[in-house]
């Protein structure tokens, strides 16, 4: 089925990007052509054909708020970074989405509007976390792009929040790209707390150089429909990546998340730990794949997925996969989904704790290890509180 793009012409893109440098205009037009040629991939359990983020429309620019920026780092709104002609942009922007072409990725690269650029200079180690909040105000379609570049040996913590004004029914078609130079280390926390009617498509890509380290701490609570796929390329020897993904879906929320670790470097290691909580009629489709390519000798890739079901109507599909093309590796997965143990609830209630508070404690205990590495205590507690406030009987 051809997805129509008749509403979006090269002339419109050219006008939309009129103030941008020619390399970017050309890329946008190239991406628009690719979007025309590529059909929208059909997702069996999450049909996207009717989702707002597939609209071939020109998006609004999301608001971006940046916390304190320290010496050695640059954090700026992407439109500003483009206007200032920052060198890394041309080199990296959209590069990680060129592998494995996809209609929505191409559409995003043709139409992205604003976002943020974070750069940490070579060898710099930031004493405190960088913080960015991306907000949806008014509007019906947003397409922010987040680009994070850590040069060789740089170390940083970054916290990104996705939020919007209450009642928003907007769609988000965004993207995150992370490039870590040799020996760089990033602890990336992302907290998705979009309003309850938002539909979000939010893929992430990362590339790790030799001995680079990346920790994704991803916490999803918001949006009516949230679809993301996170793909980490462990290109350098000795690189390490870890995903700590937590999510909480309630009411009729629908989540489809996938995490893929692609091992290319020898001795690269990855670990995916995902824990989800579902209540009401929420549904989550969760998949993980550890891909170990030829020559990634002594690589190791592990996955652990657990979903806690607080209601009988909630539904979880867990799809763990391994794709291994090298002999000397270690890899494996464990996945489970199950209800709260009624004996735990009984025990807590027998101490006077109310039924709803008992469930909160169980959820807090279930998610504690995934939130423990969020760098700022108040952010960590705020995220935990928002998770726990969702618990309903």
């Amino acid at each position, binding site marked *: 089925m051809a997805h129509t793009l008749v509403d979006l012409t090269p002339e419109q893109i050219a006008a939309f990007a009129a103030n941008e440098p020619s390399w970017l205009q050309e890329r946008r037009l190239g991406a628009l052509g690719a979007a025309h040629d590529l059909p929208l991939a059909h997702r069996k359990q999450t049909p996207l054909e009717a989702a707002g983020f597939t609209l071939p429309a020109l998006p609004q620019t999301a608001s971006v708020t940046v916390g304190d920026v320290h010496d050695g780092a640059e954090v700026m709104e992407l439109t500003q970074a483009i206007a200032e002609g920052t060198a890394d942009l041309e080199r990296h922007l959209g590069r990680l989405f060129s592998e494995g072409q996809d209609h929505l990725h191409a559409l995003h690269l043709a139409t992205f509007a604003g976002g943020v650029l974070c750069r940490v200079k070579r060898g710099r180690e930031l004493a405190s976390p960088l913080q960015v909040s991306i907000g949806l105000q008014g509007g019906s379609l947003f397409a922010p792009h987040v680009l994070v570049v850590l040069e060789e040996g740089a170390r940083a913590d970054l916290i990104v929040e996705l939020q919007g004004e209450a009642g928003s029914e907007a769609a988000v078609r965004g993207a995150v790209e992370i490039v870590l130079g040799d020996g760089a280390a990033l602890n990336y926390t992302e907290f998705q707390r979009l309003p309850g009617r938002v539909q979000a498509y939010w893929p992430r890509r990362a590339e790790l150089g030799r001995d680079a380290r990346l920790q994704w701490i991803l916490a999803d609570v918001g949006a009516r429909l949230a679809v993301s796929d996170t793909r980490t390329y462990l290109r350098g020897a000795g690189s390490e990546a870890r995903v700590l993904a937590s999510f909480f879906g309630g009411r009729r929320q629908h989540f489809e998340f996938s995490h893929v670790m692609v091992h290319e470097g020898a001795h690269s290691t990855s670990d995916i730990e995902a824990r989800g909580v579902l209540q009401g009629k929420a549904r989550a489709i969760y998949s993980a794949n550890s891909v170990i390519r030829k020559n990634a000798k002594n690589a190791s890739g592990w996955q652990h997925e657990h979903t806690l079901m607080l209601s009988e109507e909630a539904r979880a599909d867990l799809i763990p996969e391994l794709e291994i093309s090298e002999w000397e590796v270690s890899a494996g997965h464990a996945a489970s989904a199950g209800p709260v143990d*009624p004996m735990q609830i*009984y025990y807590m*209630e*027998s*101490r*006077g704790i*109310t039924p709803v508070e008992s469930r909160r404690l169980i959820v*807090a205990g279930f998610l504690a290890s995934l939130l423990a590495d969020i760098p700022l205590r108040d952010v960590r507690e705020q995220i935990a509180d928002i998770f726990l406030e969702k618990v309903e009987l």
Partner: protein
Amino acid sequence: MARLELIIEGLRVGIEGREIVKGFDLTVRGGEVHAVMGPNGTGKSTMASALMGHPAYEVLGGRVTLDGQDLLAMSVDERARAGLFLAMQYPAEISGVSNANFLRTALNARRPESEPVPVMQFHRELKAKMESLQIDPSFAERYVNEGFSGGEKKRNEILQMAVLRPRVAVLDEIDSGLDIDAVKLVAGGVSQMLSDDMGVLIITHYQRILNYINPTNVHVMMQGRIVRSGGPELATQLEERGYEWLREELGIDEPLTEEA
């Protein structure tokens, strides 16, 4: 505070359609220690679980009041806040939730939302109570019952009782799996708390713990009801002569080893 009064009248309890407790009567008042003894499978633990409101047990009849309130009409957490405490034989493990957090949440559930227990004061009191029960201070931050030995779980139950200060504590086989030093500690912990404000119901198979907590009343339960009541001397008699003697005297000829 008025003297505690727990009145159980004609309690009948079943599980999966089978009646286990068949008309149980008992009154416990503040300052009293009642021991309910009996062979395995006579319904002692079923009675205790039904008092607390265990979801697997069904109350088929009878009436229970705690300080005049209808206990059986309450939910499990309401019973606890009304002052009932059950030290369980097999307490649940709760991963990711520290003992201290668990207990603080339980205490706060008894207070108005705007007046949570001050954190420093809570930790001071918890530490003191742990010391008196010879519980290692590291247990405050360990996850509830996770990786605890049988004996550690039992001591943890008594610690919870000491912190929550119930009106009536039901100790279900608190002495099983404990060595003699631990039995003394647990018994000491219970005895310390006794007053007109609090009564204790000890469920036990053995007389051993009664050497360290002096019971005011001893009851023998067989086939789902109390068949004999007396003072501390009844426990001594049972210790010397076993349950067989009483069974013969009462003309009960069903086997005693029915499943619990």
